[in-house]
């Protein structure tokens, strides 16, 4: 104990030793199975494999992706579809989640807050696959509840899939907004009540400005999650999602490019190039968002 106090150099060295020892197992898993593969993917993408022989081809896979009419056409199409998928999520999720969160935290609900919060979150605990099939059965023309082939029509297929996905995930933005709402100090709200402000005025005048940073968080997480979307499209529409690729998004395009699907042959090196392009796109958008928007949505200091 005495020596520990006096020997501060030894202390720092010991701290480094313990810090490394304790974080090493977690670092190992995280680096080897999450960080490294993302970077290794770039190195795979500058090669081609023919007859088991690997040869360096520089950026040819990228040139192919952006110049081959089929590939580049499908890529841009999938990207646009994906942006539509994201936009529908965002536009529907934010007002609905805000309404849910505002209602379950309103004074009138009180004791049932926890009940509503849990129930409304249940769809988010299901697998996307299950959710997709549940809805496909319900809207199936065979069953006759919905007469129109929503998934079989180009114009309605992607919005329909988006709504299934929103039905599932709405609980997550709701929880973010709910948590921000219940974190507002009670004395602020009490003061408003004493001043005679109505529930509506308290909400828009006091609560809403305090939870705006959550919208930034919801936007960026929705962006990342929808850009990584795959499960619901693949399980309902397959790996070459129709009708006529109208529901193809980046995840399914990437899957096809390296894994193949039906008569489409996959190519790991080309798939790696596709993954790298998607990764850079997500990275640039996310970084741009943090630089530009996050400054404006700075949390109000409480």
């Amino acid at each position, binding site marked *: *104990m005495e020596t520990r106090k006096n020997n501060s150099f030894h202390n*720092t060295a010991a*701290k*480094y030793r*313990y*810090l490394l020892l*304790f974080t090493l197992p977690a*670092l190992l*898993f*995280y*680096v080897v199975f*999450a960080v490294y*593969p*993302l970077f*290794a*993917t770039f190195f*795979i993408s500058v090669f081609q494999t023919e007859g088991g022989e690997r040869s360096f081809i520089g950026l040819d896979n990228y040139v192919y992706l952006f110049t081959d009419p089929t590939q580049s056409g499908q890529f841009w199409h999938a990207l646009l579809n994906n942006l539509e998928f994201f936009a529908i999520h965002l536009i529907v999720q934010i007002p609905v989640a805000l309404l849910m969160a505002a*209602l379950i935290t309103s004074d*009138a*609900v009180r*004791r049932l*807050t926890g009940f*509503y*919060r*849990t*129930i*409304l979150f*249940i*769809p988010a*605990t*299901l*697998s996307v*696959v*299950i959710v997709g099939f*549940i809805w496909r*059965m*319900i809207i199936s023309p*065979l*069953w*006759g509840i919905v007469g129109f082939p929503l998934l079989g029509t180009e114009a309605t297929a992607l919005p329909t899939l988006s709504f299934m996905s929103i*039905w599932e995930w709405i609980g*997550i933005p709701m*929880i*973010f907004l709910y*948590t921000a709402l*219940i*974190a507002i100090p009670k004395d602020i709200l009490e003061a408003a*009540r004493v001043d005679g402000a109505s529930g509506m005025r308290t909400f828009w005048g006091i609560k809403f400005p305090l939870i705006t940073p959550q919208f930034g968080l919801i936007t*960026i997480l929705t962006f*990342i999650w929808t850009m990584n979307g*795959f*499960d619901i499209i*693949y*399980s309902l529409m397959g790996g070459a999602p129709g009708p006529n690729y109208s529901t193809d998004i980046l995840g399914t395009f990437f899957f096809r490019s*390296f894994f193949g699907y039906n008569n489409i042959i996959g190519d*790991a090196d080309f*798939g790696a190039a596709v*993954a790298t392009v*998607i*990764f850079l796109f997500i990275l640039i958008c996310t970084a741009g968002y943090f630089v530009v928007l996050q400054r404006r949505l700075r949390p109000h200091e409480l």
Partner: protein
Amino acid sequence: MTQTSISRRRSAPANGATRPSPHPRRHLPPSAFLIHGVLMVFVVIALGPIFMIVMNSLKTQQGIFGGPFDLPNAETFSFDGYFRVFQLGDFGNLYFNSATVTIVTTVLTVGLATIAAFAIVEYKIRLAPVLSAFFIIGIMLPVRLGTVSLLQMMSSWNLVNTTLALILVYTGMSLPLGVALMVTYFRSIPQELKDAARIDGAGEFQTLGVVTPMVRPGLGAVAALTMLPIWNDLWFPLILAPGRSTQTVTLGVQQFMGQYDSDWPALLAALTLGAIPLILLFLVFSKQFIKGLSEGYGK
């Protein structure tokens, strides 16, 4: 910011139920009925589809098509769908695989994240915040885009079509959120407690053992947040372990739906079997899960 999040954590479990009401036993204003009415509509939208699937899974094919909204009655009630699912879909094995992958990954993630987060909070040297930031970046990393490389890695280690491949990948991608969450929990432990343990002669490992029970809510949150996405994932089982013997429930249901697409009782039973365990799990862990969600991402 930290102050509010700590007080929130303490008050959350009792949320609503014991919050002192400034106007006890006040009459509900008319707007309260409207609010409950709208919320009930949301409840019906959230639970209705699940209820329809479960209810119809207990009917015969004729019952399902004859009256989709009718409860099963003596004439339409049938367990046949479930029998066929267990025969054809090998659901026992699917559950076993999903449970193995989910439990092993969750234990690994909670364990490793706890040790790492303890060290990051405890040893205040310049490297600690760097490591912390490195883990936090991982929360947003699109790990799926590394799949080509992961697949090559797994096949060179002969791990394709093993549950081990899934466990390794899932642990790697769950740890960032786990570490970030545990760091916030360890920060709330008073330094004096750890110093007291050391003065009593505890080594670093024993100190960790002393403080770990105090972050139990954090362990629950990390466990809940790790479990759900893993059980529900389709991507990695499809690519790394599609073999029949290593399939998870999610993948198994996906394939079953494609294979028996006209046997509605069996399809509905398969969906029910895929959905129910997770709903039950969530109802047990909902507090931990919701807390973990808001604290893990909410920075």
